[in-house]
């Protein structure tokens, strides 16, 4: 049973495994990342398949940024400054991020933002 007032705490669930029903959206696909290949090429297989989803997610973040700064200046700042940040990141992360931007067509600054979001989000 679920209480119908926040925080909607339920009785401890049982028998939920194997995953099924309304709390289970779907399984997760497996990919291989070959650490012997050059950093810029390691993510090609994953990003080729997930490119559209990545573009949609980045667009959602852009929409959010533009909601805060309608002039678009915030995104402009990201696209101008964060590519410089990519060159300061320790190897192999900078090269891997550049490879992801290359394959996905997403601006490098926005892929960098996605990858350092944890530090930024603590703001």
């Amino acid at each position, binding site marked *: 049973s679920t209480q119908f007032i926040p925080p909607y705490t339920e009785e401890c*669930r049982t028998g939920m495994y194997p995953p099924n029903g309304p709390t289970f959206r779907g399984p997760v696909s497996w990919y291989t990342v070959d650490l012997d290949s050059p950093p810029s090429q390691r993510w090609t297989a994953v990003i080729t398949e997930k490119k559209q*989803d990545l573009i949609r997610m980045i667009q959602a973040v852009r929409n959010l940024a533009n909601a805060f700064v309608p002039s678009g200046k915030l995104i402009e700042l990201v696209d101008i400054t964060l590519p410089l940040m990519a060159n300061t990141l320790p190897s192999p992360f900078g090269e891997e991020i550049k490879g992801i931007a290359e394959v996905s067509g997403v601006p490098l600054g926005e892929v960098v933002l996605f990858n350092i979001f944890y530090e930024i989000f603590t703001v």
Partner: protein
Amino acid sequence: CTSVVAEDEKGNLLHARNLDFGLFMGWDMKNKSWIITEKLKPLVVNLDFRRNNQTVFKSTNFAGYVGMLTGIKPHTFTLTMNERFTLDGGYIGILEWIMGQRDGMWMSFLTRSVLENATSYEGAKRQLAETKMLAPAYFILGGNQSRQGCIITRSRLLSIDVLEIDVKLGRWYVLETNYDHWKDPLFLDDRRTPAMKCMNQTTQAKISVKTLYDVLSTKPVLNKLTTYTTLMQVSEGKLESYIRDCPNPCMPW
């Protein structure tokens, strides 16, 4: 996020987590969901990192994100991280970085390098506890033998606390949400209490991957920010992940 490392009665270590993300980043009134959370779900992938055609480690990631939030070094250790909020936050680390002071590690690059290079639970624990970082964090680490499970509470510069599994004290699991374990969680966001209630109700005798999934499926441990659930068994080198939904009524966080 909710991460838990548990030791069963045979001394096996199990590690599980809900990854919750997207708070305050746009709410979809019609679908009663967080916009960014819903955009992240299709990006969830399981990755097998290989060198010389051998698995080095495995992880659950968001495609396009090269750092690690959830991973297993098969038969060696398991690692998840949860967000920690303090005033001395990541933005200070970023400012230092921009000013040219670059001796700190970006959180997710630290977890990636630990999974790639550490060869033992103790080695991983030392790196996670001692490396200077740009942002605070909780690292939840499981090993491959009895009593090897801990929560490392990190500030940017220091390891503030390490809470270990200690079966003799009756602490057969350690569980972390997003609050220091020695303080009460924010009353508006108490996922710790229901999670611990369900763990205690499960008991050590019955803890397993299945019952861990039950705990992580119980509201509000499962909430509108939950993108995926991962279950890891270090002794079998096994990682399995599932994309989640939280049917109404459900807490936004």
